[in-house]
């Protein structure tokens, strides 16, 4: 299999414009004749559905939630980057591009990242016009703040609810097109399979989560916007229903899965309190603008934080990285939290936490100023922990947050299955081995508003799309596949719950395929995953039946897919014998514990092709070599 990135030729700055000039257009009359299926209604899905419908396509939209507005983009807190340079601090499209590619540790495709930076400004314009209430200065003009991995202030924000406001903007744009009759919207339906006919994506199978009915949907293209796979770790900051199933089923139908081992562990989350824990809560990294991260210098120091004098506090990020300090990228912050806690300097009941302290910021700016910036985050923290962060420092610890890997896509955001487009977190495209803060919202909306609507037109105009109907055998086969899996799960009737298996799988992944990874650990993880997967298929107990609302059945189908994905992640992490971004291999680090990249051998995208599962995952890796024409590869340094 040859993976062609289809990056246009020419200077970096001109690639996208040239591409737009070259791609084929469809007349409004013809757009009307085509149907596009959009799966998922987060930022990427809602913006793509709205924009495609505005162009005249017939859109069928699907989400698993009871309303499009509840997709997990809603929970993004901190902000969205754009190269507006309103603060006049030297920002530019080039600099946003450069920071993003450097932040991703040079493991992403130059041309895609440059385009992302280019369209970033239009996203802000679009959102403001929709009425997204971004933070403003007294002048009435838009305010910015700074975020990890950048030395300029380019982040637009709406209190600590930027994702919510941007998603509501996209959702409302989408509902406007539902009203106009151009989007047929379906909620509480889960995609269980992709239907490929004559080598092209021509439809999907969904399960109605209320009635349990299997349904067939035809289209001329499918846009998958179903988010990331962080929940393979069981505990993560993802919403409980976020899952990899739609993407994984596409993978099983031929779409290659790229860089599955790239998982971002967010440094500022509320620590785990007990076994019953169902998810982890993120505290926006914008808090690192004003909060100072520290641990007691002395191991096992159990004094109250307020009783520990200044010289006995180890502000480890400020000491080790004087120029970025508390604003180092997420991977660096997470790794250092693990280092200090592994050394026994961790705080709190479990010792698996570090302090994030606002004492000095409150002293400097006053409580009101801090409350205005972070009030809702402080309230959230107090609600969960029962502690007041205005008085005591927060306790934080890293948690799985975002997955940079995803289905492989070319420059047009089309997978290697013609007609299957992938946008937002579900693709692997823009963040390399690490994503910078406030870049996920940017990417989801860039893909949905400003990339997919053009590239899909080119595909449809250029492709022979004979009519298909849902009586085609491929649909029947897909339905019967999904049905038999469900029947199988319901009939095992073992004695351990789905949650039990998911939690156990998560432990394997966190211990061995988490913040730091070793050859030995991963080889063991692969064996453990296989053994647990076998046990799952023999001993899981799924309650109830298939023909009504059954949340644990939904979970069972998703966990079955995680069991396969988990093995792929470990395999991918094993073959990548270097450290880069969030992927830290213990064998490949400098004496100071910094990640050591190996550009000679590993400057490629690892795209995996699914072959089968037979006790073990059968898979083969294809490489897309990354070519850097415009940036010079450097060892990242935030010192």
């Amino acid at each position: 299999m040859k993976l062609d990135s289809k990056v246009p030729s020419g200077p970096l700055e001109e690639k996208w414009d040239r591409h737009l000039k070259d791609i084929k257009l469809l007349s409004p009359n013809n757009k009307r004749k085509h149907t596009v299926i959009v799966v998922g209604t987060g930022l990427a899905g809602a913006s793509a559905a709205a924009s495609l419908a505005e162009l005249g396509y017939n859109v069928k939209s699907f989400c698993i939630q009871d309303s499009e507005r509840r997709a997990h983009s809603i929970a993004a807190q901190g902000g969205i980057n754009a190269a507006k340079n309103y603060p006049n601090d030297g920002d530019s499209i080039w600099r946003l591009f450069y920071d993003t590619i450097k932040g991703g540790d040079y493991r992403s495709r130059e041309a895609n990242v440059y385009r992302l930076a280019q369209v970033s400004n239009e996203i802000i314009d679009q959102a403001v016009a929709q009425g997204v209430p971004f933070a403003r200065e007294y002048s009435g003009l838009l305010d910015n703040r700074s975020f990890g991995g950048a030395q300029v202030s380019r982040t637009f924000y709406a209190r600590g609810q930027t994702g919510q406001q941007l998603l509501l903007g996209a959702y409302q744009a989408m509902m406007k097109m539902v009203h106009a009759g151009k989007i047929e919207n379906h909620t509480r339906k889960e995609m269980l399979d992709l239907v490929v006919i004559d080598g092209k994506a021509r439809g999907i199978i969904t399960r109605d989560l209320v009635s349990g009915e299997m349904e067939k949907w035809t289209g001329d293209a499918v846009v998958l916007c179903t988010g990331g796979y962080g929940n393979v770790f069981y505990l993560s900051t993802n919403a409980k229903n976020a899952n990899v199933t739609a993407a994984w089923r596409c993978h099983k139908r031929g779409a290659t899965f790229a860089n599955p081992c790239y998982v971002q562990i967010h440094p500022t989350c509320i620590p785990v309190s007990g076994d019953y824990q169902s998810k982890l809560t993120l505290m926006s990294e914008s808090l690192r603008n004003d909060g100072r991260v520290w641990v007691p210098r002395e191991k096992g120091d159990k004094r109250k934080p307020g009783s520990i004098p200044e010289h006995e506090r180890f502000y480890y990020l400020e000491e080790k990285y004087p120029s970025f300090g508390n604003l180092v990228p997420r991977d660096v912050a997470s790794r250092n939290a693990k280092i200090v806690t592994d050394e026994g300097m961790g705080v709190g009941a479990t010792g698996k936490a570090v302090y994030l302290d606002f004492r000095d910021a409150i002293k400097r700016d006053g409580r009101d100023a801090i409350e205005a910036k972070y009030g809702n985050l402080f309230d959230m923290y107090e609600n969960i922990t029962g502690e007041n962060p205005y008085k005591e420092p927060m306790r934080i610890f890293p948690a799985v947050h975002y997955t940079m890997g995803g289905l492989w896509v070319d420059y047009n955001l089309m997978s290697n299955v013609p007609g299957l487009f992938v946008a937002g977190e579900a693709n692997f495209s823009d963040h390399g081995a690490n994503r910078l803060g406030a870049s996920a919202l940017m990417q989801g909306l860039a893909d949905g508003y400003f990339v997919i609507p053009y590239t899909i037109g080119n595909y449809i105009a250029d492709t022979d799309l004979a009519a298909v109907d849902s009586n085609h055998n491929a649909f029947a086969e897909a339905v019967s596949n999904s049905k038999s899996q469900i029947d199988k799960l319901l009939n095992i009737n073992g004695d351990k719950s789905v949650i039990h298996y998911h939690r156990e799988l998560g432990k394997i992944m966190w211990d061995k395929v988490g913040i730091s990874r070793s050859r030995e650990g991963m080889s063991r993880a692969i064996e453990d995953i296989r053994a647990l997967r076998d046990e799952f298929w023999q001993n899981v107990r799924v309650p109830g039946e298939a023909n009504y609302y059954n949340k644990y059945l939904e979970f069972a189908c998703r966990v079955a897919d995680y069991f396969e994905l988990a093995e792929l992640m470990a395999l991918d992490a094993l073959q990548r014998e270097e450290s880069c971004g969030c992927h830290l291999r213990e064998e490949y680090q400098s004496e100071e514990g910094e990640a050591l990249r190996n550009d000679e051998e590993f400057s490629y995208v690892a795209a995996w092709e699914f072959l089968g599962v037979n006790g073990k995952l059968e898979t083969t890796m294809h490489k897309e070599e990354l070519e850097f024409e415009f940036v010079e590869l450097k060892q990242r340094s935030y010192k």
Partner: protein
Amino acid sequence: MIPVRHAVTASTEKIIQPIEPTIMSSSDMTIHLKIWRQKNAESKGRFETYTLDNVNEHMSFLEMLDVLNEELIENGDDPVEFDYDCREGICGSCNLVINGRAHGPKHMTAVCQLHMRNYSDGDTVVIEPARAAAFPVIKDLVVDRSAFDRIIEAGGYVSVKTGSAPEANLIPVPQKKANQAFDYATCIGCGACVAACPNSSASLFTGAKIGHLNKLPQGQPEKQQRVLSMVAQMEKEGFGDCSNYAECEAVCPVGISISAIAEMRREYLKALFDN
């Protein structure tokens, strides 16, 4: 986890520190639950009682229900269905009515953010779905709130097409207006306002969207059509009218002010007269 006490000597005075706040006791509580069980929209529901004796104060309320479900599944019973997703108080999926109060006892807190430290050993907790004619029960505590989406569909947006937006800073918005708009825009669409209202009115939800967009210059061109269409849809869905009980504001997990309803009415009347 064992509570630890520390003695610290400061100058000559000996101070006994209080128990370290980060180390909390984790004694288990017994909680009695009365939960609404209903097979589907057509069947009749009933309350079932359950007792959990391993409830930890640090658990969230929904984690307590997870624990109950694990026990039910182990015993071969059907688990209790309830809606949830982000468990961070922002997606608006969860909407339980607890002891008669939407989202439970804690002010401005969605039920997913409610923790069991708000309850005591031996408490009885009654859990019901968010009931309203316009929110039919799907199963147990899960209800159909798609009526809210149809209200937004009727006009809860600014009709700007992708790509046609002017430069963002060409539309200055006074900071105060932007903040007021935000206060309305923060609605999470959970439906607690409807569940709490004696009339099952969706006025707070609808008013919040109208208030958000009307505060902004971007929302001006369509404001009359917006209020007329959204109010008409609200009525069509079977939500009641507002009689100023203000129960909605009291239970709103994000603190939407009832002034949203005043905004909506004012705009509605203006729109009626102008048209």
